[in-house]
């Protein structure tokens, strides 16, 4: 809403423009900018009455405690009576509670007076001719949208307000033809639609150069109806903006009178005596009770009852003192936003001034304050990864199917059934992510020139429905995951000792993370899945529950992202991990008795994983085995092709005594026997 102070000053005394800007702000009317006299204002959707000069002046008067004066329209009705010459029928009083019509005859079309054109232009409206300008001017002045029909283009000057029939058509003033449905309310003549009610007039009944007689409409339409009609037509107007936000139903007649007066003055018309006023659903003031004590309790104020009454009366509300503890307040029909006590409390706060409410702190303690356990574990995970030298990233949770395909995840069921947005903003963000990998690969691509180590802790959204996405009814399962991405890059010659970035470095990061979270050691198993290298990928599980995957990115996929060096990815199911976390950190006594160490080298088939060897040996060893570690794997001469040698260091210890060599020897025999029996392994000598 744009308005000049020159216009407002007609109704109320004004402070300086800068002070006025502050008054607007503290009333809740946003000042987008103001250059001297001209203000550009942002009006909230609950206050249609602020979309008019008089409404704004009323608010300024209330905020600054000045009286507002609005002169009553002065009108001489010198024409024949309107009664019997114009008919108005309203099919449904809910859609159109009131319809006022006036008839102005023998107008002379021409430009409107300069002062009027000037004000219209200041408010951002283009002057057209004296008739249209008067209707626009009165709308800006009073907030009531008006429409002027060429009366001679309406058969028998008979108007019906009704819903459109499905398929019915209207060509609006802008020359566009619209096909309608029953959502749209129409002003119709006997033969055709004349206007889309509250939105725009029809081209057929438009005022033109040759127009002589004007039928002036000043009506109150249901806000919801205008909103639905607007949605169907696909555009809104200054008129619909006001109707949607509520126009005072008890101001229609006065606005019609004011417009008739101006038409008389600016277009030389003769105003027919009287007006058609079909007020089929009369509306009266809202009556709301207010307890001053409650008002003070909510705001943290100590206003007297009289002070509260004064504030409310400044706003044009009428207050009746039922008792010292209870006020009865009538809110005029231009303030439909006031429906209950809290609305009046807000009015007191606004007019008294938010600045004048003391700044205090609430009382009380909250035992549950702070982060919940799973949130603290998120912090622990982030912190562990940062300590491993990884940098955190935050990426979009929306992605496209193309991005998923690019990451080689299209064959994955849970990925393809991703939940789609019904009305995406762009084709890049059409569905909810079901994997962190695509955006992580894209981030690696962004940083492809560097050696980077990244992680993200974020959500994926897994559908619970069967994937018939059009009718998704159930909220998806929102799971937290951790994704880790490493990208190698050559280092300068003098930095050759930098730690090598490879699968085992990635595995090391994963293990540090699990260690920091206190999860037990997981099981790794070679796995083949996209987008990983078929021979360098492992799935991770704990007690049979899948926890994630880690591996080297398949070269074909990496190439698709322009990654010139090897890249490594891991994703972990954080929510599943959390269920395995033990927060108990129990002290283990330091060992008092010495350990005995033995090395063992086995020759076995090359495809037997080292993890299996360890498991078999550990199971065979019993409780004396403290630790077992692989320290070398070798294939090549003199080992036979298809075989390898695995060297292990075993440490034995008893907690209650010094072990004897004999005890260890016997255990070693059991271990060797198991290796031969279960792994077909031979002792390397």
């Amino acid at each position, binding site marked *: 809403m744009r308005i000049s102070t020159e216009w407002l000053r007609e109704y109320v005394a004004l402070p300086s423009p800068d002070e006025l800007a502050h008054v607007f702000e503290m*009333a*809740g009317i*946003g000042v987008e900018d103001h250059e001297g006299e001209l203000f550009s204002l942002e009006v909230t*959707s609950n206050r249609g009455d602020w979309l008019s000069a008089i409404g704004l002046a009323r608010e300024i008067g209330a905020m600054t405690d000045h009286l507002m004066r609005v002169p009553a329209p002065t009108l001489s009705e010198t024409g024949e009576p309107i009664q019997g010459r114009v008919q108005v029928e309203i099919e449904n009083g809910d859609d159109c509670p009131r319809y006022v019509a006036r008839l102005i005859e023998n107008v002379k079309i021409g430009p409107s007076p300069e002062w009027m054109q000037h004000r219209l232009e200041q408010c951002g409206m283009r002057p057209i001719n004296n008739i249209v300008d008067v209707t626009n001017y009165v709308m800006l002045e009073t907030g009531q949208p008006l429409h002027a029909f060429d009366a001679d283009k309406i058969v028998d000057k008979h108007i019906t307000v009704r819903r459109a029939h499905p398929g019915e058509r209207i060509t609006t003033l802008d020359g566009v033809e619209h096909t309608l449905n029953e959502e749209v309310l129409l002003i119709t003549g006997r033969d055709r639609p004349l206007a889309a009610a509250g939105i725009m007039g029809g081209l057929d009944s438009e005022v033109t150069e040759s127009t002589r007689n004007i039928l002036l409409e000043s009506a109150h339409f249901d806000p919801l109806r205008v*909103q639905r009609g607007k949605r169907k037509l696909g555009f809104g107007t200054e008129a619909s903006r006001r109707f949607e936000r509520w126009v005072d139903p008890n101001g229609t007649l006065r606005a019609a009178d004011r417009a008739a007066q101006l038409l008389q003055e600016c277009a030389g018309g003769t105003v027919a005596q009287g007006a058609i006023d079909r007020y089929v659903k009369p509306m009266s003031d809202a009556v709301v009770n207010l307890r001053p004590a409650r008002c003070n309790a*909510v*705001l*943290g104020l100590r206003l007297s009852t009289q002070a509260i009454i004064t504030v409310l009366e400044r706003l044009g509300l009428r207050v009746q003192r039922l008792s010292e503890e209870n006020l009865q307040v009538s809110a005029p029909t231009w303030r439909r936003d006031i429906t*209950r006590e*809290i609305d009046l*409390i*807000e009015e007191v*706060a606004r007019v008294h001034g*938010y*600045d004048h409410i003391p*700044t205090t702190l*609430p*009382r*009380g*303690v*909250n035992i*549950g*304050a*702070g*982060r*919940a356990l799973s*949130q603290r574990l998120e*912090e622990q995970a*982030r912190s562990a990864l*940062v300590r491993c030298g*990884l*940098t*955190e*990233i*935050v*990426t979009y*949770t*929306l992605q496209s199917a193309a991005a998923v395909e690019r990451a080689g995840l299209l064959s994955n069921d849970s990925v393809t059934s991703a*939940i789609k*947005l*019904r*009305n*995406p*903003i762009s084709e890049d963000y059409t569905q*909810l992510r079901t994997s962190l990998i695509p955006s992580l690969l894209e*981030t690696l691509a962004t*940083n492809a020139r*560097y*050696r980077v*180590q*990244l992680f993200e802790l974020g*959500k994926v*959204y897994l559908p619970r429905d069967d994937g018939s996405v*059009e009718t*998704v*009814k159930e*909220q998806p399962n929102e799971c937290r995951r951790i994704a880790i991405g490493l990208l190698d890059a050559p280092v*300068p010659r003098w930095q050759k*000792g*930098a730690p090598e970035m490879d699968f085992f470095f990635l595995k090391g990061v994963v293990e540090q993370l699990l260690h920091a979270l206190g999860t037990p050691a997981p099981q790794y198993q070679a796995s083949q899945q996209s987008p990983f290298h078929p021979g360098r990928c492992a799935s991770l599980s704990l007690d049979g529950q899948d926890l994630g995957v880690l591996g080297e990115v398949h070269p074909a996929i990496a190439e698709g992202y322009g990654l010139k060096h090897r890249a490594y990815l891991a994703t972990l199911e954080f929510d599943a991990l959390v269920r395995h976390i033990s927060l108990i950190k129990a002290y283990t006594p330091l060992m008092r008795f010495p350990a005995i160490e033995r090395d063992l080298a086995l020759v076995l088939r090359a495809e037997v994983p080292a993890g299996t060897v360890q498991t078999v040996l550990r199971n065979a060893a019993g409780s004396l085995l403290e630790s077992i570690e692989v320290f070398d794997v070798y294939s090549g001469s003199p080992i036979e092709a298809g075989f390898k040698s695995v060297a292990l260091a075993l440490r034995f210890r008893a907690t209650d005594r010094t072990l004897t060599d004999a005890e260890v020897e016997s255990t070693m025999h059991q271990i060797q026997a198991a290796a031969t029996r279960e792994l077909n392994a031979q002792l390397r000598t």
Partner: protein
Amino acid sequence: MQEQIQQLEERASQRLHEVASLADLEEVRRALLGKKGELTALLRGMGGVAAGERPRMGQLVNDAKLRIEAMLEARGAELTRIARDAALAAEIIDVTLPARAVPFGRRHPLTQTSDDIVRIFSGLGYEVVEGPEVETLYYNFDALNIGPDHPARDEKDSLFISDNLVMRTETSAVQIHVMESRQPPVKIIAPGRVYRRDAVDRTHSAIFHQVEGLLVDQGVTFGDLKGTLTAFLQQLFEAIPGGSSLRTRFRPHYFPFTEPSAEFDISCIFCGGTGCSTCKGTGWIELGGCGMVHPGVLENVRYDSETYTGFAFGFGIERMAMIKFGIDNIRLFYDNDIRFSQQF
């Protein structure tokens, strides 16, 4: 004999002087003191010396041997030092070459800011709660007094999944979940992602993060809301000069779920309130919305709106981080360029 000893000593001194390596030195030692060495030969020649002279001559030869050994040792030490110096000289590095990049992980500026916010509100006694990002229309709109025809429910403003589900447009829905599950007092903050159907530009993102706060108890006032947000903002920006003494401003506004409602501003921390490009000359920076929880919202969750009052507030984490770190483009947060990430 005596003369021979003297000559030997002189030759030894001369040869040691000429020796240039430890290997050569060893050769010289052997030539002088070895089994077939010159001094050994001299001792063998003692047989030709008169018996009375032998003890004196023996003494002389021994003394000479000690002196030669001392000379060998000294020369050896000297050569060792020279050799080590040469080795060290070969190991000179250019200390001005760039350092090896030690991997140093960092937290994303958004999660850092979110942590700061959570830490401050934890200190004020708030509990941190979360809710789903895919929300039902009831929780995202109806329960928050946003009726079926409110513009926020338009397809052009919010991202819909179906007739029943929407990407949450604010974290306020979490309030409803919490209030439904317990009776007052409720004192929570809810950080999380929210979604709007906005075109992305320097200051807008379709996906961003918000923190929503809610306090419902007996006797909570609008003054308490002002005090809480002022204390929070002064702590959040305390590291910025003048941050701990910044001023707040509350302007009336309209939100369906609060009444009275306000937008809150801080005095511009870049110009101190005198007006600059960041605050567009106004001296104030707009940060978020707040208000007293609408009694209708309390009644929707079956709280006694007579006994209890409450306040709620919400603001964007990106906006706070942009002010805190002086970042002028919201897209930087999501580009994840390592040159950006490593600055925080």
